[in-house]
């Protein structure tokens, strides 16, 4: 028996979210008195997993898996879970993990709970806390199957350092042509920018910025902070910014450590999608903007004055704290 965790890589490197799910899997393993076993696909090095309490890693090296395939990756994880007799499988909530999780659930006849924010309660049953109604509420869900799959919300658990003896084992993916019903024709990825899903800090602009030509300062602020850029829905609807930047209830969810909202009023649909972020800062020239009720820090002021000053001060701060 074991707790299995899928630790994702990007260009062969383990992602930060991989260490978060590893930390979580280790905590669940301790709770249940089991071992924490990771699976990596085409990782260059898995050494770092020893900093987060992983006991064993199944290293898959397979050229067929060079590009992500939900079906083939799910198949690989199924085979790993079967071999390890895993009762709990932990995944992140990256786009790829969310894509493969339901397939894996059917393969393993497992109950799957997504958007989980805390460790399970395991006295008696197996209950997890997950967000519902786009962060307007939480739901205590009991998973009633023998095998359970947990999708852990990004940044919900954090990294927990925990030294371990890491055993490395080669693992055969055991995928076949049948797992490749979908062909990846091309990938268009912005590699020099952090994505909203992976970002610790997100800088977001709304209609208050007046037009696309004013996004220079938003980009610059994001660059200083190493942040991803996002926007409210009308901004992407009007074509000021790409759709992929639209966040909120009907856009991308944001669960960053820091969310900075500039010229965004804080409509219920916007707040729903971003409120999982830990710290929220609002910059708005209307002191009655609803966002002030949902934020931790606020500045009432004109974005065109405040943001350049903020950039300048942050540059000084970064220089002094480097």
């Amino acid at each position, binding site marked *: 028996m074991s707790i299995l965790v899928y630790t994702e890589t990007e260009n062969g490197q383990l992602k930060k979210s991989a260490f978060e799910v590893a930390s979580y899997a280790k905590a669940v393993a301790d709770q249940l008195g089991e071992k924490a076993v990771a699976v990596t696909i085409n990782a260059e090095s898995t050494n770092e997993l020893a900093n987060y309490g992983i006991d064993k890693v199944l290293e898959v090296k397979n050229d067929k898996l060079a590009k992500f395939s939900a079906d083939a990756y799910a198949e690989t994880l199924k085979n790993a879970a079967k071999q390890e007799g895993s009762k709990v499988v932990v995944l992140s909530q*990256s786009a790829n993990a969310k894509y493969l999780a339901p397939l894996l659930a059917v393969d393993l*006849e497992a109950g799957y709970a997504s958007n989980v924010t805390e460790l399970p309660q395991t006295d008696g049953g197996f209950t997890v806390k997950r967000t519902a109604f786009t962060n307007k509420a939480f739901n205590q869900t009991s998973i009633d199957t023998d095998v359970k799959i947990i999708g852990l919300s990004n940044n919900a658990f954090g990294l927990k350092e925990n030294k371990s003896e890491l055993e490395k084992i080669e693992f055969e993916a055991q995928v076949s042509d049948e797992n490749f019903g979908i062909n990846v024709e091309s990938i268009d990825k912005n590699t020099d920018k952090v994505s*909203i899903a992976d970002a610790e800090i997100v800088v977001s602009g709304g209609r208050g910025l007046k037009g696309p030509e004013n996004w220079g300062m938003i980009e610059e602020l994001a660059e200083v902070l190493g942040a991803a850029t996002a926007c409210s829905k009308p901004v992407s609807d009007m074509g000021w910014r790409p759709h992929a930047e639209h966040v909120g209830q009907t856009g991308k969810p944001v669960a960053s450590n*820091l969310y900075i909202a500039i010229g965004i009023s804080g409509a219920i649909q916007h707040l729903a999608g971003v409120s999982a972020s830990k710290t929220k800062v609002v910059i708005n020239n209307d002191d009655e903007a609803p966002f002030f009720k949902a934020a931790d820090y606020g500045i*009432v002021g004109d974005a065109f004055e405040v943001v350049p000053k903020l950039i300048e001060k942050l540059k000084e701060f970064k220089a002094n704290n480097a």
Partner: protein
Amino acid sequence: MKILVCISHVPDTTSKINFTEDDTKFDTNGVQFVINPNDEFGLTRAMWFKEKQGASVDVVTVGGKDTEPTIRKALAIGADTAIRVDTEALEGFQVAKELAKVAKDGGYDLIIAGRESIDYNGGMVPGMLAKLIDANFINTCVSLEVDGDKATAVREIDGGKETLTSSLPLVIGGQKGLVEESDLKIPNMRGIMMARKKPLNVVEPVGANSQASTKKFEKPAPKGDIKMVDADNIDELIDLLHNEAKAI
């Protein structure tokens, strides 16, 4: 082409969320229900296929009689037939199994579902359904073309996009981008009148069991007071973010 659009019936995005019966049930009192926004984009794309390439469009929901106005709205938008599987939607796996029966019976080429429902945000049903009926599956789909028995789709990935091709039958988890906001149609009077005459078939559930169950709902803890910082005192904000929030 035979298209099935899976519709989940969800509280309108502005709804205040409350619970009853000791926080075990969602309080539907005064709540307006709508077609899940992700499904509305998919339905509108299905109407595009119908107009431009010729297709029949069925819509399906798993739910009680209270969901009928929602699927009637899909008929008013232009779907041909509605199917309601007469059982309460309890959980993703159970819903997927109920939908799998409808999908198999109908022999659809394309099944359009949404990336996630905005109520329980499971993001489970489309993938499970695809696996159960042995169809290909593409999630977070923002563009979809079909040519003969081949589909070309664009999927949103973290930090970019991916172009994929697949044979049919195909299930997608769709979202905005399949069509634009401005393409969404508010049903007109004629559509509403015609919808009354279109078939709404109520089918018996297979009685799929659940694999997970809601024990209790909770509201988020009330927010502490906001700290206001003067626009002339940016240093204070940086200090708070660094030392108090530990966010930078």
